[in-house]
C-alpha cells in the first residue's frame, strides 16, 4: 500500500520539480569536472569583485581631475599596481573595469542568445518551410560576413557608447547560436511528444514554449556561457580600435589608454599587463565552465 502511494505521487510530479531533479543531477556531474569547478571559482571571484566595486572604488577615484598621485608611477605601497597617465590607481581602474567588462560581456551574450534562439527555433520548428529557408539564408549571411568589419561599420555609425557596443556585439554574434539552435530544434521536432502535443490541440506557441524550448535550452545555455567569453574579447577589440565607450572604464578601455599613452615603448608594464591578465582569466573561466556544461549537456560529447 505504502509503495502504491509512492508511485502514484511520483507520477504526478510537476514539470518544475522534474526539471529541478535534472538540474541538481547536472550540477552533481558538473561538480566532478575539475575544469568546470576551477572556472567557476575564478568567475565567482570576479563577479563578487564586480558587484562590490562601487564599495571599493568611488567615482572620485576614477576622475582624472581629482587624481592626486604622480602619473606613470610604478607599483608601490600607495598604489599596488601603479598609476596611469592621469595618476589614477590602476588597481582602482581594474576593479571598476570588472563591472563594465562583465556587464558588457553578459548582456551582449544574452542579447545574442535571444536573437539566436528566436531565429533558430523559428527556423528549426518550421523546418523545410519558406520561413526556414529565409531565416537560414539570413543566418548564413551573418555567418559569412567578417564580423569585425561589420562591427566597425555598425559601431562607427551608431557612435561609441556602452549600449551601442553591446548592441553591435549582439548583432554580430547571434548567427552561430541560431545555427546551433536550429539544428537542435530540427531534431526535437521529429520526436513523438511534439506530434502528441499538436494532436492534442496544442498551439504552435504552446508546443514551442513547453516542449521545444526546454529541450533546446541545455545546448543554448552552454553556448551562451561560451558566448560571454567571446563578447568580452570582442569588447576589448572594439575598445582598442577606439569604438567602445569613452566615458566608462572597462578592461578594454584601460588597454586602449595604455596603448595610445605609449605604455609599450615607455615600459609602463603595470598599466598594460593587468587589464589583459584579467581578461584572459575571465575569458578562460567562462570557456572552461562553458565546455564543462557542453560536455554534460550534449550527449554526443558525453559518449566520447
Amino acid at each position, binding site marked *: 500500500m505504502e509503495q502504491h502511494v509512492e508511485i502514484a505521487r511520483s507520477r504526478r510530479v510537476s514539470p518544475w520539480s522534474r526539471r529541478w531533479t535534472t538540474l541538481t543531477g547536472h550540477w552533481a556531474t558538473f561538480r566532478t569536472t575539475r575544469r568546470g569547478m576551477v572556472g567557476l571559482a575564478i568567475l565567482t571571484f570576479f563577479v563578487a569583485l564586480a558587484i562590490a566595486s562601487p564599495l571599493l572604488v568611488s567615482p572620485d577615484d576614477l576622475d582624472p581631475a581629482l587624481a592626486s598621485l604622480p602619473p606613470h608611477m610604478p607599483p608601490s605601497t600607495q598604489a599596488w599596481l601603479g598609476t596611469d597617465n592621469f595618476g589614477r590607481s590602476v588597481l582602482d581602474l581594474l576593479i571598476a573595469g570588472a563591472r563594465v567588462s562583465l556587464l558588457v560581456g553578459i548582456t551582449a551574450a544574452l542579447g545574442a542568445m535571444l536573437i539566436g534562439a528566436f531565429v533558430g527555433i523559428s527556423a528549426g520548428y518550421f523546418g523545410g518551410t519558406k520561413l526556414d529557408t529565409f531565416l537560414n*539564408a539570413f543566418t*548564413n*549571411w551573418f555567418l*559569412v*560576413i*567578417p564580423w*569585425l*568589419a*561589420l562591427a*566597425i*561599420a*555598425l559601431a*562607427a*555609425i*551608431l*557612435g561609441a557608447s556602452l549600449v551601442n557596443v553591446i548592441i553591435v556585439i549582439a548583432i554580430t554574434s547571434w548567427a552561430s547560436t541560431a545555427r546551433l539552435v536550429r539544428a537542435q530544434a530540427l531534431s526535437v521536432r521529429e520526436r513523438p511528444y511534439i506530434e502528441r502535443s499538436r494532436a492534442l490541440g496544442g498551439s504552435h506557441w504552446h508546443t514551442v514554449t513547453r516542449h521545444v524550448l526546454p529541450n533546446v535550452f541545455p545546448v543554448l545555455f552552454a553556448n551562451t556561457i561560451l558566448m560571454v*567569453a567571446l563578447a568580452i*574579447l570582442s569588447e*576589448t*577589440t572594439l575598445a*582598442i*580600435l*577606439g*569604438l567602445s565607450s569613452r566615458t566608462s572604464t572597462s578592461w*578594454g578601455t584601460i*588597454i586602449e589608454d*595604455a*596603448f595610445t599613452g605609449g*605604455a*609599450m*615603448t*615607455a*615600459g609602463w*608594464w603595470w598599466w*598594460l*599587463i593587468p*587589464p*589583459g591578465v584579467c*581578461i*584572459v582569466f575571465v*575569458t*578562460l573561466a567562462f*570557456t*572552461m565552465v562553458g565546455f564543462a556544461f557542453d560536455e554534460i549537456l550534449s550527449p554526443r560529447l558525453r559518449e*566520447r
Partner: protein
Amino acid sequence: MGSRRYLLSKCLQAVVTLWFVLTFNFFLFRVLPGDPIGLLARSEHFTPEDVARLRHDQGLDLPMAEQYVVYLKDIATGNLGESLRTGIPVNELIGSRMRPTVLLVGLGTILASWLGVLIGIRGGWRRGSRFDTTSQYSSLVLYAMPEGWLGMLLLLFFSGWLHWFPAGGYASADETGVAYLVDLLDHLFLPLLTLTLGYIGGYAIVMRSSMIDTINEDFVHTARAKGVPDRLVRRKHVVPNAFLPSFTLIILSFGFVLGGAIVIETVYSWPGLGLLTYNAINTKDYPVIQGVFLIASAAVILANLVADITYGYLDPRIKQA
C-alpha cells in the same frame, strides 16, 4: 546533383550574398541615425551650406531609388567614392594598402595553419599524452587572449625592454635590395608572430578533433588489422581524411586576409588595410570604412566559394547532399 549544377548553385549563392552585402552597406550608411554627412555635421561644426554642398557632392540629395542605382553602377565600375578627408578615391587608397596586409596576413595564415595542423595531428594521434594536454591548454590560453593585447605585450618585451625590434611601422623606402628585405623582416617579425600565435590554436583544435573522429573509422581498423605499420596508418589513412575540415578552414581564413589583421596592424602601425581602417574610424571617414567593409566581405565570399568548390572535388559525397 551533377557537378555542373553544384558549381552553378554555389556561384549563384555567392552572387546573392554579395548583392546582400552591397544592399546592406547601402542602407547601413543611409538609413541608420543619419547619413555620413549628417554624422559628420553632428560632431563638427558645419554650416548648413557646407552640409548641403557635401550632400550634393556625395549624391545624397537624390531620391533613394536613384541613389541605389547610382551606387550599384559605381560599384560595378570599381568606384567606391572618395575619402571625406583627403579626397583620394577609396579604391586607390585600398589598392595602395593591399600589399602590406596580404604579405602579413597571408604569411601569418600559412604559418599558423601549417604549425596548427602539425600540432593537431600529433595531439589527436596520441590523445591524452603530455604533448596533447600541453598543446590543448596552450591553445585555450592563446584563445582567451585578446590578439591586440598580445601584440602590445610582445611589443613591450621585445621592443620596449630588449630593443630587439622596431616599435612598429614598415620598411623604409630609402633602402634597396637586401637591406630593404632585412628592414622589412625586422618590421614584419613581431606582427607576424602575434598573428601566428593568435590563430594557431584554432587550427590545432580543428585538426585534433577530426583526427580523433577519423581514428575510430572502420577503414582505420581495417588498415591496422591488415598489419599496416602505425606510422603509415597515420600518414596514409588517417591524416588525408582528417585534413578535410582543416583544409576548408584554411581556405576560409584566406578570405579573412583583407579584414583579418585590423587590430594587429593598428598596434604595430603596419601600413595596411587595417591601419587605414583605424585611421578612418578616428577621422570618421565613412566612405573609407564602407569601402573596407565591402572589400573584406567580398574577399570572404570569394573564399567561401573557392572552399565550396574545392571541397566538392575533394569529397564527392558533399555534392550528392
